[in-house]
């Protein structure tokens, strides 16, 4: 079987400006949503208590709210989680309150309302731990970016490193933009997914960069634009098949993984879809605009005989 019977190189670079404007607009939109709506951080980052409670029949969220209101709690959120029988209760941090007492007291008021309520999970994060997690997450993102730029600069050329990281950070910002726009919960596993996507999308850039280098060696007479077009065209089938395969796995997580893996898989899905786009249509034009040349990648071989002459 073969999906891609492309006989002539596709002139990607001819439309580079258009692609870059599209990316810029999506990027700016993502930044806009991040700035105006902000991320809906999970309690892992903000601190607080989350309780997952399971009922035998469909849970009556209004009744649960009433039960909690009558106990004097406010500022909490109750929502269904995964199925109609499971609910998630979120409580913000309150100074001077003990997590152990809180979850116990909440559970008592819930069981008083409905005897079948059972506690499935409690998560409590103190304010300090939350701040540390957020800081460490940002640090991990920074270190990953620097590491990738350095590695690509070493293996290829600094222009590729810079272009690849801009293209892929653009993906990261777009994922975050989606999470801000839809106010999906941004949790630790989502952060892990974002970083995994960053590493994964760079693969894409590496594959193309590798081809560009190879083409510089082989196609001596071709222009830079032709070389880039050829590199992208030659790798496009691999790009789409690989991403399709990875997405198959991720879709399976999205379908069968349940609520615990939902946002993790969702972040990966967005990352994978935009990863294709950005490596092909953001990174390559950037490399060209940074002014990549044959001499950057193909080191001139010195003639040893000349050196030997005294």
């Amino acid at each position, binding site marked *: *079987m*073969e999906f891609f*019977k492309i006989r002539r190189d596709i002139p990607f670079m001819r439309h580079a400006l258009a692609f870059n404007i599209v990316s810029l607009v999506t990027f700016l939109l993502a930044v806009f949503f991040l700035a105006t709506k902000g991320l809906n951080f999970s309690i892992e980052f903000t601190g607080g208590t989350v309780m*997952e409670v*399971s009922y035998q029949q469909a849970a009556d969220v209004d009744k649960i709210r009433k039960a909690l209101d009558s106990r004097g709690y406010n500022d909490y959120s109750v929502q269904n989680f995964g199925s109609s029988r499971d609910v998630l209760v979120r409580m913000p941090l309150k100074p001077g309150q*003990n997590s*152990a007492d809180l*979850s*116990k007291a909440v559970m008592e008021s819930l069981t008083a309302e409905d005897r079948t309520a*059972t506690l*499935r*999970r*409690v*998560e*409590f*994060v*103190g304010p*300090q*731990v939350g701040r540390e997690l957020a800081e*460490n*997450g940002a640090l*991990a*993102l920074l*270190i*990953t970016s620097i*590491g*990738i730029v350095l*590695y690509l600069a070493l293996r290829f050329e600094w222009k590729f490193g810079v272009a690849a990281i801009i293209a892929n950070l653009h993906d990261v910002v777009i994922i975050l933009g989606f999470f801000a726009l839809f106010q999906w919960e941004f949790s*630790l*596993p989502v952060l*892990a997914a974002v*970083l*995994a996507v960053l*590493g*994964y999308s*760079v*693969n894409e850039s*590496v594959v193309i960069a*590798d081809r560009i280098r190879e083409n510089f060696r082989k196609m001596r007479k071709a222009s830079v634009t032709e070389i880039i077009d050829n590199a992208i065209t*030659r790798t496009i089938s*691999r790009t789409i*098949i*690989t991403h*399709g*395969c*990875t*997405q*198959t*796995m*991720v879709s*399976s*997580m999205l*379908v*069968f*993984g*349940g609520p*615990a893996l939902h946002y*993790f*898989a969702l972040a*990966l899905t967005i990352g994978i879809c935009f990863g294709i786009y950005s490596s092909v249509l953001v990174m390559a034009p950037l490399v060209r605009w940074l002014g990549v040349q044959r001499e950057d990648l193909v080191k001139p071989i010195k003639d040893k005989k000349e050196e030997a002459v005294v």
Partner: protein
Amino acid sequence: MNRYPIWVYATIAVALLLGALYTLPNFFGEAPAVQVSPARATLKADTAILGRVEDALKKAGIQPTGMFLDLVGVKVRLADTDTQLKAKDVVDQALNPDTANPSYTVALNLLPNSPRWLAAIAQPMYLGLDLRGGVHFLLQVDMRAAIAKRAEGLAGDMRSQLRDRGIRHSGISREGNNIVVRFRDAETRDKARAVILEQLPDLQLADSSSGSELLLVASIKPEAQKRTQELALKQNIQTLHNRINELGVAEPVIQQQGSDRVVVQLPGVQDTAKAKEILGRTATLEVRMVDEDNMNPAALAAARGGQVPFGDEFYIERGGQPLLVRKQVVLTGDRLTDAQPGFDNQTHEPAVHLTLDATGARIFKEVTRENVGKRMAILLIEKGRGEVVTAPVIRTEIGGGRVQISGRMTTMEANDVALLLRAGALAAPMEIVEERTVGPSLGADNIKKGFDSTIYGFAALSLFIIVYYALFGVFSTLALCANLLFLIGLLSALQATLTLPGIAAIALTLGMAIDANVLINERVREELRGGATPQAAIHAGYERAFGTILDSNVTTLIAGLALLIFGSGPVRGFAVVHCLGILTSIFSSVVVSRGMVNLTYGTRKRLEGVSIGNTAWK
């Protein structure tokens, strides 16, 4: 050209064999078991205990399916969970006649069900709390309180040192972490300074003055502060160990994290409320003197109204009696090494026996000598609020560090007091800063969901790859299976903890590992289209793709390592599997798949074509 030397095939075979061997235990599942381990350091797990457990089970008519002794204690494997619960009760009754003060911890556990020869080589993966259910706590030790307490203790030491040498000062007080001593003249201050520097090397001194008074301001040296913090953390961890023994958890994890935190993980604990109650009991112990001068009805009545005499604190004893207790601390809980309930030798009254360490014994001797006939109070301080556990009268001078508290106590009370004293000996208060509780049903659910998503994803992926790349697709799929085998084998061999994000990482790694094979297969197709002979195309395809595969895996690994270093909790579980998966995938997708290709095609002299899907179009 497409032949591997024998040693490469041998390496692949050995790797596959090891992978299979270490993966195998994961398929046998786990059997319910009861674990018996000594609750006190003085007791040892030996064959005698094994015999006693065996007898107890025989008497109750319970037939264990297996029984052995290891470093932790005795482990009894049982047929089902009902027998497990029954066996636990039977063994508990037989070994711990005194339920209030158990000598052995009897806990429910799960043991790998693999045959003995296999269990000797390999263990199944260790399941994280989100998969097996249990409690995870992160506790933060209040180091400022630890330092403040140390300063209070040093102030006490200074007082007794100066008194011993007859150096007259006009007051010692603690201000924050500093100790301020007041003097009337410079000569006395110089003398005092010499004594303090010699006797209390943990302090550094500075001169100061306030009005006509000359001051000596002592502060704890930074290195002594650090030592105090380390000791406080160590002691708290020890205390947590003791407390958790009370809970009867099979494999608790109690670990230091950073400089002031402790991680506690209790797998399989169902009664989370009790666990929290026992851990959250952040009590510290203090011995202080009762202010006998002010223990008159008038002063007590005034104190009840809020007019507490200077330097005193007002408490209600457990019996309901009001007490005025001096603020000055004589001894703290860290001087107490043990507290056991028992009986007075002469009167046979219930009593509590305390054992103090050397410093504690010396201080106690001094204090009791000077205060015969007076009362001392033992206080339990919880989150800044104190409670008088007991306030006994000192009958005689007590030396040697062995103290007995008796009188007006029932056996039950003696047990309670001993437990409170023993378990309450935290060096500094702790607070839960992170908590994760996962019920057992959710854990089972998580395993199923994680497993399902991996299996279905893998099946769909394999189907597509085989249809698209024909025989090369089969090789790619088999290479992916080998990757899974290596990864699970490696995780089992390292005894890494598998969590739900870890399972997600396995699925994701498989989805990403296929990239290498797609790269190779596409390259081989391209070479074939370019007119290369089949053998040359295979060779060039693998050769040319390898550099790209390496580069792309290194960049993924950079992201994985960053996650590993900065991640915590669920992210770390993801990162470990992700990083290991990248390493195994390079080997399996390049070397293992090439091995299969070489075995199939490499030996043929005249190869007409390879089965890699349609390459005929031009």
